[in-house]
């Protein structure tokens, strides 16, 4: 349970500087994972930092009646000149885990799975490796609420899978408050949503409603909801639709890149996230098609020795997805 009461926050305390967050009143129940949505500069990361206790509000208060993690993200938290192992040790010590320190190091090492780089200075890491380490480190502690600031945005497919499994294993015991531009990620992890718009916060019990409200507050673009497919034909159709949407998103992004910088509306970054989201959906649709073909193939194999028909569509899509 996290209670936010009459919270005000602004930067540069000069007279007349605008509130980033203005009179926020929220109560985030225990065990509910929440996605934070809003445009760039709407104060998502600021709110997350305030919840995590990294920053202090100008007015109002935040009552944390649970163990809250630090914001898991890419920036900060590590000393570049020290190795991954030394950094993990440091964080474990700060959290008072003096006796379990070896176990924590072993657990983080195996989760992050970055091999020998664990004993190299952090400044030599790629952003993917940093996020693996940051993610593994935060999961080594038993928090009630994990704060994630785009932590899942990087990393390869395999690691994303691993991270989401680790989180799902904790549902019921722990919840998540996350900032992400990837709607797929938000849908996957969050039940409720908070929309930040012009300094105000709006609570939605359903993440879908929050995503819809976010888009209608923005430019009116509403992403189609995922349809459930029942057979191969429907799956193929969904794949074709996903492909078309991916192409459209790609074209929109290209067009925005051609026009003068900064004049594009919606901004280029939004388009990029939209493209990523479309790509995720192509992958998802392709997986469904593969599932159905495999099922069909098994049935056929049970009947006779003839080979299942080769599906060429997913080769095409993977090439398309790689292009960006």
């Amino acid at each position, binding site marked *: 349970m996290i209670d936010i009461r009459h919270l005000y926050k602004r930067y540069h305390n000069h007279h007349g500087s605008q509130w980033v967050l203005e009179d926020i009143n929220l109560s985030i129940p225990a065990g509910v994972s929440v996605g934070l949505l809003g445009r760039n500069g709407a104060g998502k990361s600021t709110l997350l930092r305030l919840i995590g*206790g990294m920053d202090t509000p100008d007015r109002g208060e935040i009552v944390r009646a649970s163990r809250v993690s*630090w914001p898991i993200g890419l920036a900060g938290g590590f000393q570049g000149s020290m190795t991954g192992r*030394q950094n993990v040790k440091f964080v474990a010590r700060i959290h008072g885990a003096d006796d379990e320190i070896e176990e924590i190091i072993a657990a983080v090492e*195996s989760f992050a799975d970055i091999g020998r780089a664990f004993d190299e200075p952090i400044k030599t890491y790629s952003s993917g490796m940093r996020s693996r380490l940051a993610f593994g480190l935060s*999961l*080594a502690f038993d928090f009630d609420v994990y704060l994630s600031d785009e932590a899942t945005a990087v990393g390869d497919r395999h690691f994303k899978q691993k991270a989401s499994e680790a989180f799902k294993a904790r549902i019921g015991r722990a919840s998540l408050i996350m900032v992400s531009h990837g709607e797929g990620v938000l849908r996957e992890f969050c039940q409720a949503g908070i929309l930040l718009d012009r300094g105000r916060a709006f609570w939605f019990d359903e993440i879908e409603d929050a995503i819809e409200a976010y888009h209608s507050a923005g430019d009116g673009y509403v992403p189609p909801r995922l349809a459930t497919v029942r057979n191969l034909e429907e799956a193929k159709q969904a794949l074709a639709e996903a492909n078309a949407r991916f192409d459209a998103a790609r074209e929109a992004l290209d067009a925005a890149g051609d026009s003068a910088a900064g004049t594009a509306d919606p901004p280029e970054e939004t388009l990029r996230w939209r493209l990523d989201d479309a790509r995720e959906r192509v992958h998802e649709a392709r997986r469904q098609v593969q599932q159905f073909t495999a099922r069909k193939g098994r049935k056929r194999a049970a009947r006779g020795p003839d080979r299942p028909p080769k599906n060429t569509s997913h080769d095409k899509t993977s090439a398309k997805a790689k292009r960006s």
Partner: protein
Amino acid sequence: MADSLLPVAGARRRGAWRVARSVWFAMFMREAISRTMADRMGWFWMIFEPLAIIGVMVSIRGLFMSGSEISGADHVPWMIVGLMGFGLFRENMMRALGAIDANKGLFAYRQVKPVDTVLVRCFLEGMLKSFLFLMFMLIGNLLQFELMPDHPLGVLLDWLSLWALGWGAGLTVSVLGDLVPEFGRVVRILNLPLLLLSGVILPVMYVPYPYRDYLLWNPLVHGLESMRVAFFPGYHTLDDIDMTYLWFWALSLLALGLLLHIRFAAKLKAH
């Protein structure tokens, strides 16, 4: 695999004092490693740098001034004691100046406060300098430089006083230097005049009588001269050396520094 990563540490509810203690311990280990192991030959330079400074100073003195005694003390040990005492103060102040900025990334963990970084750095710096001073005494004695304190307890007390002064200056300067970057620059510029006005190289007894009163405004003069009196039998110095004056400065600076840290804690973190 995901299931290999069971949470092994419960983030138990701890008291403020226990949190502060574990933060200090963690920061200390980390600072100690990065100070001594991070650079190539970190250990070597830590010992060789002050040694080289002492060597240069002693040879300059040998070139331009005659006599090997200063107010009843051999000039090499006299210089070593002065430089070590001044170095203790200066390093505490200067290391603290960069402490907050160097550890910005760590404020991601809400347990770490800006004041912790300064306290830990000053503690580590004092420990390193004390170790170094003891080692110099040992080596000096082996080389027959008469580097054994006459009143060890007096020297210890004066050493701790200079440390406290450096600690107070460090706490104050770290906040001001972070809020107003120009302030840090000014402090760096003031280093050299301070060295000359503290009687480290130029003996205070050489200063003409009318100017001695002004010299005594500098608390470092009191600390260094008092330490030399305790160190060398038969050393004589100005009459008005008073450790109470130094402690007045040290306690004022400590109080001011801590107050500034409390007042500007949020601002220092947010920068």
